[in-house]
């Protein structure tokens, strides 16, 4: 009985901790993005709320919560109210399979630093990233606004086309690790991260997740200068906040996935594993922000051209070639 209670308590603490840390990082990622972007444009960025603007996320949260929650006339009410939750939920749920450290021992209990070590973790992640499309699609469609609708159509097309190359890019990784479990994929990279063995796959994966996170240069679903604010044009208050936070949680999830698949997960010298994992995730997030500060936006036809005529064939070719090399090296 006592044993069981400690296990339940530990799981509860772990869940609460992950939830809190993820939301905390997401909130401060917004601030970090604004700050870094500002500095890249020789501005200061938010620096009024608290020292160096460090309490800005709290101020934003209060603003979001106290704003009016508008539901436009003619909108499909239930879907309209439901879509932002879907966007945030799918992003959060992907965290369930992310291992951020090796198994540790607390109170004589084995404690894996992952919420649920699914043996099909990679597929679970791919499935959830497909589900995330619904937040965009339903939100845009239910708004009954032409801009939101256009944006959600673009979003749908973009996410579906880039998901393919993203899925294909992790095939060599799964072949090399011989497992769908994310923990085992990280274990397989103990000596060398997969980014070095599979640079092309890494590149394809990285470009695809940039498209998946709907960020510049792939931010067509929310192209401000064409579509007002994209699929969340009609949203206000905390519902917009949920879309926004979902986007940043998604950024952390995708950063974690890059870390797990290609950058060696929690493996690293000297520092504790969890710290290494965090450094790598934030590093990927920084590169995202850096790209946003540097690149212009694709045109829609360029996006489709790039996705289907370059990324897809390249990813397929990469699967064949790395598979062939693996077979040849292992003497199969």
């Amino acid at each position, binding site marked *: 009985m006592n044993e069981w209670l400690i296990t339940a308590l530990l799981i509860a603490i772990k869940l609460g901790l992950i939830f809190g840390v993820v939301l905390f990082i997401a909130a401060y990622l917004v601030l970090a993005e604004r700050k*870094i972007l*500002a*500095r*890249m*444009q*020789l*501005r*200061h960025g938010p*620096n009024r709320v608290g020292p160096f603007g460090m309490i800005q996320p709290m101020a934003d949260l209060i603003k979001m919560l106290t704003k009016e929650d508008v539901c436009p006339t003619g909108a499909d009410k239930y879907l309209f109210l439901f879509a932002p939750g879907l966007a945030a939920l799918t992003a959060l749920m992907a965290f369930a399979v992310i291992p951020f450290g090796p198994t540790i021992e607390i109170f004589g209990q084995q404690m894996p630093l992952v919420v649920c070590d699914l043996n099909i973790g990679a597929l679970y992640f791919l499935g959830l990233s497909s589900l995330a499309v619904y937040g965009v699609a339903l939100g845009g469609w239910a708004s009954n606004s032409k801009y939101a609708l256009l944006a959600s159509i673009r979003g749908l097309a973009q996410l579906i086309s880039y998901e393919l190359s993203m899925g294909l890019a992790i095939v060599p990784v799964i072949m090399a690790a011989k497992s769908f479990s994310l923990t085992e994929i990280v274990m397989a990279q103990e000596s060398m991260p997969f980014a070095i063995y599979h640079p092309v796959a890494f590149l394809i994966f990285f470009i695809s997740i940039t498209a998946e996170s709907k960020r510049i240069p792939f931010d067509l679903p929310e192209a401000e200068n064409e579509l007002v604010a994209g699929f969340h044009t009609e949203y206000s208050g905390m519902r917009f906040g949920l879309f926004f936070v979902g986007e940043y949680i998604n950024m952390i999830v995708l950063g974690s996935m890059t870390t797990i698949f290609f950058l060696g997960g929690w493996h690293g010298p000297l520092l504790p594993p969890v710290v290494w994992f965090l450094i790598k995730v934030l590093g990927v997030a920084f590169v995202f922000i*850096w*790209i946003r*500060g*540097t*690149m212009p936006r694709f045109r829609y036809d360029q996006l489709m051209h790039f996705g289907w005529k370059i990324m897809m064939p390249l990813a397929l070719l990469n699967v064949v070639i790395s598979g062939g090399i693996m077979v040849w090296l292992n003497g199969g």
Partner: protein
Amino acid sequence: MARNFWRDIKGTFEPFWVTLRYLFTKPVTIQYPEEKRTPFPRYRARIVLTRDPDGGERCVACYLCSAACPVDCISMQAAEGEGGRRYATWFRINFARCIFCGLCAEACPTKAIQMSADYEICNRDPLNLVYEKEDLLIDDGGNDQDYNFYRHTGIGVVNPRGGNEDENEPEDVKSLLP
């Protein structure tokens, strides 16, 4: 084709270096309430009424500034003191209308109305932007400290007629003129 390819690759990756370099340079923003930029000497902001070196008002209420003003924001009432010295009983500039063009200062024959560099006059209530004479008058000569209109001309206010340094004696109109 090949040349364009390499040019495009370069064009894709060179901006990253630029943004990274800018990330570590100092922002150019002036943090306004804490830091203030020094205005240029001839900056045109709040209008002032200056005084001559003796401390008297320079304004002679000639209405030239009011006539020159393209937005009609200057109004006054002229009066005559002892010795024929003209002055404004009241002088009013509505800064809510003023466009800070400086035409009034150009038009002024006595250098009384001048542009100052004080640009911090914003206000929540437009009525507070209507400046009266006592708000406009300063105890200073402004751009030309030594200038005194009545030392050069004017009808016997400082010196008797024709008594100024660069002034001739008045002609005796009753004499036989050449």
